């Protein structure tokens, strides 16, 4: 795993959409944070959450010596502490004066342009339920193309899967483990009881602002 990925994942709460992650990792070595910020406005404006996370990540990656600290507050704001005399001009980052960047709650992804993702999720889950109804094999149930597609949504799909776990029954622990990546690999480790595992995942989702 490259340094860029590791560093990015260390800001787990900020993980944006796939497009952004991909671009970020690719361009990490040659980053021009100003250019990236501007291009993110153009190309990733559909993903409000991703756009903001991209911005923060871009700043941290490109100028680790200038900015010492970033944190996500429970109210959905990211605080970035700048070192003295390194504050960029407000013409580049309009809201820099406040030193706070708003990161919408992850549930906002639906209203902020991810209605399409939700529609796709609903369609996939209906297809998966119907086509695996009489199957006993978890191997086949988890390998079903619709389930695999949901897993491939990654963190962007977590709010939908967690809500599904919250409202309905189903085999979601396998998908959750992969969707949450490093952050979620140990959430239900060692738990053999459905209710305990469900409670652990929902608590994690709540703490990480997914539900």
């Amino acid at each position: 795993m490259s340094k860029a990925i590791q560093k990015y994942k260390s800001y787990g709460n900020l993980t944006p959409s796939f497009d952004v992650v991909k671009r970020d990792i690719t361009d990490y070595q040659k980053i021009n944070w100003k250019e990236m910020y501007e291009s993110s406005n153009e190309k990733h404006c559909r993903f409000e959450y991703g756009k903001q996370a991209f911005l923060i990540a871009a700043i941290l990656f490109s100028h680790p010596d200038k900015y010492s600290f970033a944190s996500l507050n429970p109210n959905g704001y990211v605080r970035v502490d700048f070192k003295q005399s390194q504050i960029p001009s407000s013409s580049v980052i309009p809201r820099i004066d406040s030193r706070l960047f708003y990161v919408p709650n992850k549930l906002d992804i639906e209203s902020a342009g991810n209605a399409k993702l939700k529609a796709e999720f609903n369609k996939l889950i209906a297809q998966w339920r119907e086509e695996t109804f009489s199957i006993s094999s978890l191997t086949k149930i988890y390998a079903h193309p619709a389930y695999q597609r949901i897993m491939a949504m990654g963190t962007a799909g977590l709010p939908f899967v967690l809500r599904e776990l919250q409202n309905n029954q189903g085999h979601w622990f396998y998908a959750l483990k992969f969707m949450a990546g490093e952050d979620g690999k140990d959430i239900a480790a060692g738990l053999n009881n459905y209710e305990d595992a469900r409670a652990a995942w929902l608590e994690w989702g709540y703490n990480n602002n997914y539900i």
Partner: protein
Amino acid sequence: MRDCSWLFKSPGKENFGNIRPDNFKCCSDRTDHLPCWGYNCIAWAAGKSDKWWWPVAGDPCAFWPIPIEPIDPVSLEQFIKAFKSEGFSVCKNGEFENGFEKVAIYVDDSGEPTHAARLLPSGVWTSKLGRGEDIEHETVEVVEGKLYGKAKSFLKRPNPLCQKPNQLKTWFSRLLEFLRTQLKRFFPTAKRNQTSS
């Protein structure tokens, strides 16, 4: 909801080509509303109805009676070992044997287990269809097809309840069933009139 009509609609229809209305009976409600969907055919074949049996390591929704490693492949041998841990031993076929209950393990074209059914003391087989209903079917072949493949291995364990049904008793109950059907056919309103009077 006890309704097996889905077996005659798509995609059930294509998957269960041998099922006909006269060779099976719908015996339970579906279980998809339960946590982890309740239980599956493997658990049901082993006589259990509280867990979903499948060899997946580290999944709180999956139970397996013997220890497994994440790298263990899903194989017929693994299923045979699991049933052996429940007191079963491999046998030649699915024919009724006095004093024994039997299970059939089904595999698909690639040899991977897909389903299991259990032979009841009455001489018919019982299967749990995924998260759907339990059904009773006349032969192992009834649920064979595109989805479950073919019954490949048979196992048995002692069960004193499994005694060959008395032939005379069987014929008598069949005659009784026939008479009941005919009565319903010729006097369809008899029950309703009786109730209203």
